[in-house]
């Protein structure tokens, strides 16, 4: 019912879909190729690093100025938790969207805040992870693993951050009472982008962290 209202509020289109929604889908389609290229490069260079540190194994690497035994980099429990938070935040934004569409201000504010917090938590987790890896000997240019890993997850993380800022802007609009049901489509578009960022992580997490 709220959907019918939302649809009626935009000028008529050939498909019946609002143009801005079609645009974000189109952009998402393009971004799939962007992340596919980054992920493919990760896979092509997987296992080909000449020196450590390595993701899953012990290795020889340069640490504190001398070559020594280095531990595997990945801390799966932490990243798994971050993954869960990001996935849940996709659920949260659906609830927030429902709040926006039905004019339920409390629902909108609660769930949208949780979404933004989830996104920021994920970004923070990644920053922590990167810093930790750096101190364990994995600089950006250290080896093939480091450069493909940091580039891929770094770009994903910046997409998360930009999404969190976008959603945060909408949250501020919601607090000011400006995110009314007729404007709910603005949240819907941001939510679509957010789901995409989530789906990309659903590919990255197994391919990078879990696969050996």
């Amino acid at each position, binding site marked *: 019912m709220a959907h019918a209202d939302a649809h009626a*509020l*935009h*000028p008529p*289109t*050939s*498909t019946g*879909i609002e*143009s*801005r929604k*079609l*645009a974000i889908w*189109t*952009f998402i*389609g*393009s*971004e799939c*190729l*962007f992340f596919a*290229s*980054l992920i493919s*490069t990760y896979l*092509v*260079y997987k296992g*080909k*690093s*000449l020196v450590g540190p390595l993701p899953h194994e012990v290795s020889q690497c340069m640490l504190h100025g001398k070559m020594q035994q280095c531990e595997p980099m990945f801390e799966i429990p932490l990243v798994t938790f971050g993954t869960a938070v990001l996935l849940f935040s996709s659920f949260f934004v659906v609830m927030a969207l429902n709040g926006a569409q039905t004019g339920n201000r409390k629902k909108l504010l609660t769930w949208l805040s949780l979404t933004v917090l989830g996104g920021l938590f994920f970004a923070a987790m990644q920053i922590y992870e990167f810093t930790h890896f750096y101190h364990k000997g994995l600089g*950006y*240019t250290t*080896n*093939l693993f480091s*450069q*493909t890993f940091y*580039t891929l997850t770094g770009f994903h993380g910046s997409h998360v951050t930009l999404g969190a800022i976008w959603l945060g*802007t*909408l949250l501020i*609009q919601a607090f000011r009472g400006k995110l009314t049901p007729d*404007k709910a489509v*603005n949240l819907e578009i941001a939510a679509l982008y957010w789901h995409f960022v989530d789906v990309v992580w659903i590919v990255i997490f197994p391919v990078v962290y879990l696969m050996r």
Partner: protein
Amino acid sequence: MATSVLEHAPARDHEASGLWSWITTVDHKRIGILYGATAFLFLLLGGLEALLIRWQLAKPENTFLSPETYNQLFTMHGTTMIFLGVMPLSAMFFNYFIPLHIGARDVAFPRLNAFSYWVFLLGGLFLNSSFLVGAAPDAGWFGYANLTSKQYSPGMNVDFWVIGLQILGIASLAAAVNFFVTIINLRAPGMKLMRMPMFVWMSLVTQMLLLLAFPVITVALIFLMTDRVFGTHFYVPAYGGDPTLWQHLFWIFGHPEVYILILPAFGIVSEILPVFSRKPLFGYAAMVFSGSFIAFLGFGVWSHHMFATGMGPVADSVFSVLTMLIAIPTGVKIFNWLGTIWGGSIQFKTPMLFALGFLFQFIIGGLSGVMHASPPADLQQTDTYFVVAHFHYVLFGGSIFALIAGAYYWFPKMFGTLLSERIGKVHFWLAFIGMNLTFFPMHFVGLHGMPRRVYTYPAGLGFELMNQIETVGAMILGFSFLVFIYNIWISMRGRAEHPAPADPWNGATLEWSIPSPPQAFNFAEIPTVSARDELWHQKQQRGGTLPEPQRVSGAGIHMPNPSYWPLVTAVGVLVFFLGFMMVGWPLNVAGGLLTALGAFSWAFEPAG
């Protein structure tokens, strides 16, 4: 957040004039003209680079250009012609005519449209500013690793290239989203997909190619930039990197890119041949499907640019077969164009001459192309002038000829006066003779072993005569552009005395149903479409002609407000990227903040 701006401003019947109105315009017709004028100037610049190359190659062991300068010239010639010439010239026609063809008042996102133009302009200026510091890109338009590494290209040349292309990529991606949504979503009532003009179909397929191909080169360029600026080793063999990774990523973009360059030309020719044969396009559905199939297959053939890299017999065979397969849908198109002309009442006006020239030259280019599809044959042809002959036949003889045909065809609609037929015919013959004189001998000299991308050749190898002919041809070609410019100038000067009617050519598509040039809101009333070639259909129902459309007040038609935020955002993008070349992270931050300021202001701009 603001809803679409397409709603609340009162319509203006006469255009606002003055520089500020052009800087803040969001009107697709004005943006189209901006693209066209800018691209034409870059085209001339690229042509000048070509003439310098040809002057150097006119005799063996010539010392007119140093090797370093020569490398910069052929790199910039290719980069300019592709990214600053053909693509934005196509964008001129996308901008001006897609909304008119589908019966819309503008594109889906007018400010995003303006943003694309400004980013293109700034990117093109940035790329060419490299000449001012004597460091123009010099590693080829395809920038192979690891020549492009910091080790082998220590100067700023390659950095200019990487950053210039990233900036231009943003312009192309934004425009692709815009036109894709416009074509899918803003069609007039009754304008079903299979009733759209073929130009719109080919443009739609082109946008899809842009959307899927540009992200790949973006990633390739990111890796190159991190290698050069931050010291990663994506393409550095000593650290485990693989230079052919660059080639794969580049050509996964690069092959679809050449279809991006030719499909709009296919669309233009598919508009012109029917009108000037007074016959509908033969095999409309086959044209749609073959165009789509070419684009789809175009993603599967990239390694035919890599037959000499030792990929092994399986890879070579697969890419060879797929490449040969593309000849089939292409052949379908050629036969359909011939079928269109066959039995028609042919009007040999200038647009038709250039379209016929396209047909002849594209076939020749296609034949040499299919010869490259065989790896053993290609091992002889690759890196020789045989390849240069091939792609100039399809890109110049093909794309450029079609774009010029489009210019003559659509000039009266855009500027309200026809280009001179007499001068146009002189232009055509000079261009046709010049084109073939320049590029046909390259087939021979290439098969005889003259390599590409080398600043000179030794005497006594039998290359001299062909090169001299090619240089003479290039001069004729250059002169033909002066004739074109003269035609434009003299026609514009006399346009008050020779106004063009709405429909000078007896056209079939909707742009000919409105005044020349159109009013800001395009259509007084959004048309309802009931057939393909809607205008011919309407004329048939009315006994032959339609009355000359009158200019109306446009009161009550809502058009988008002008805005300067697209320009501000574009400047922010430029500044952000500059940070990777100079000054460093403070410039990245400043650029990012300016982009954010521009984007937020744009988003929150009042709709009315």
